[in-house]
């Protein structure tokens, strides 16, 4: 599976307008240079992708745990969309199979209560 990333984590007029997690943009050097990184994903589901990403970020020193080990579901700090649809609205949710060209968007959920 090839994962396309925003390599520098920068947001420009030409780039993403609503980047939510700039620190998650390719913290490993080769991805920053090439703008694209490749990762071997065991399985073809959304869950497998997120698990692989979490492991990759962990190796790069970024503590990113989108799947809560206690609930085995998305952690409440994050949301994930596949082709602009929230994962809870697609059949099979996190276990949905991904196909070529699917666009997965990860968002951090901010805290608003006081």
């Amino acid at each position, binding site marked *: 599976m090839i994962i396309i990333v925003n390599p520098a*984590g*920068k*947001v*420009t*007029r030409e*780039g993403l*307008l*609503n*980047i*939510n*997690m*700039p*620190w998650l943009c390719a913290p490993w050097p080769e991805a920053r240079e090439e703008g694209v990184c490749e990762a071997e994903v065991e399985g073809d589901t959304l869950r497998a992708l997120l698990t692989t990403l979490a492991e990759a970020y962990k190796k790069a020193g*970024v*503590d990113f745990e989108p799947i809560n080990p*206690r609930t085995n579901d998305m952690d*409440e*700090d994050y*949301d994930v969309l596949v082709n602009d649809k929230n994962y809870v609205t697609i059949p099979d949710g996190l276990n949905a199979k991904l196909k070529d060209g699917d666009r997965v968007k990860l*968002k951090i*959920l*901010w*805290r*608003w*209560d*006081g």
Partner: protein
Amino acid sequence: MLDRDELVRYDRQLRIPDFGEAAQKKLKISHVVIAGVGGLGCASATYLVAAGVGHITIVDFDVVELSNLNRQVLYWEEDIGAKKVTVAQKKLSRLNPTIEITPVWAEITEQNASSIISGAQVVVDGLDKLDARLALNAACIRQKIPYVYGGVSRFRGMMTTIIPGETPCLACFNPEGPRGLGVIGMIPALIANLQALETIKLLMGQKPSLAGKLLRFNGNDFKFRIYDIEKNEACQVCSQGLLS
């Protein structure tokens, strides 16, 4: 100049070598606005008053309700139905009568945010709505006043320090997230005390610890996570000057 009572009252912090009388005098002539005196604001106001910040403006449009009492520790059962800012002013003045506390009973909006924060050295977030926070954020950027964001829900909290012209602002992230999820009272107390500490550092002239960084605390696993965050060059609030 610190008088005899002040030297005694603040003795424990005056003993800190990189604090001392110089920092205490800076606090004494400082003005901080606390926007919202709910779970966050009650705790940050208490500790900033106790520390000796000379002038504190507290802003809120709400009245005390029974459901506030699990976390908003300035309010007691006898205060139910009273304006939060009135009760908070009374209690905070009893804690430290040397502090000037200005209560403002108002909801923060785009229209009034600038006038409410005018003259402050730091604005501390204690709000519970995104639109009010964005109004406050924009006013702080316009007036070049540091804004210490804090937000909580359930067992978790977040915080960042926004320095106009230097760090990302709240609008840089097009932030999203649900509200009204409930919260355990220790979480706003924890986040608010970090906000208060950051405010003291700003007032002392020290480098803030969370400028350009986002702190997230998860009370489920007791992990603090701190991430670098960068300005959004397309931000309509803080980066307009950079785009043609």
